[in-house]
């Protein structure tokens, strides 16, 4: 099974929960944002109840959480936005 590297960015409440701005992930080929979210739910108790991922962005564009990630992608979960 091949592996790929993906950069995961944390913002807002997720940065507070993760305690970091970003993390480099090594994922199996075919992994999706949903897979990454589920791994975070396992790692951080405060996320366990959040079964569905928040909005997902890949390379600074909104994307479907089940879209397959690719080598070098920049992934971010977007908690409910509150700009303005």
């Amino acid at each position, binding site marked *: 099974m091949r592996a790929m590297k993906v950069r995961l960015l944390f913002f*807002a409440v997720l940065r507070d929960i993760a305690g970091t701005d970003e993390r480099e992930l090594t994922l199996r080929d075919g992994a999706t944002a949903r897979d990454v979210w589920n791994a975070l739910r396992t790692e951080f108790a405060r996320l366990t109840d*959040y079964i569905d991922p928040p909005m997902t962005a890949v390379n600074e564009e909104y994307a479907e959480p089940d879209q397959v990630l690719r080598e070098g992608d920049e992934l971010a979960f977007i*908690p409910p936005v509150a700009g303005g």
Partner: protein
Amino acid sequence: MYLTDAPINPTALVQKVLRPSDGAYVLFEGVVRNHHHGKAVESIFYDAYRPMAERELEKIVREIEAKFPETALAVVHRLGHLVVGDSSIAIVAASAHRAEAFDACRMMIDRIKETVPIWKKERGPDGEEWVGWQGRR
């Protein structure tokens, strides 16, 4: 370009967009208020996914310019720590006629609140909270 860490200067924003053919402009500013859902608020920290927020703001400007081709638009969102009375966002819409200026300005702030990756953490005597996160799951 659309994001700033400094206080917003709405007058400069108006000067940037106003053309001799414009008969009206509408300026909207969002301001940190001292309450939210019945709780006291003292300050707000605005966070953003900056490059993506810039792109989303640019998309919204183009979308609304397409809907209102005679209207000139400008927007700037402030990030960082703001206190009560500080402006977090300013939007200017200038047009030959006022109806388009009002409609474009209002549509702009409505759209920004839907999709631009900016977040706020409210701080008050009861503690602090990322707005919109609690209750969602």
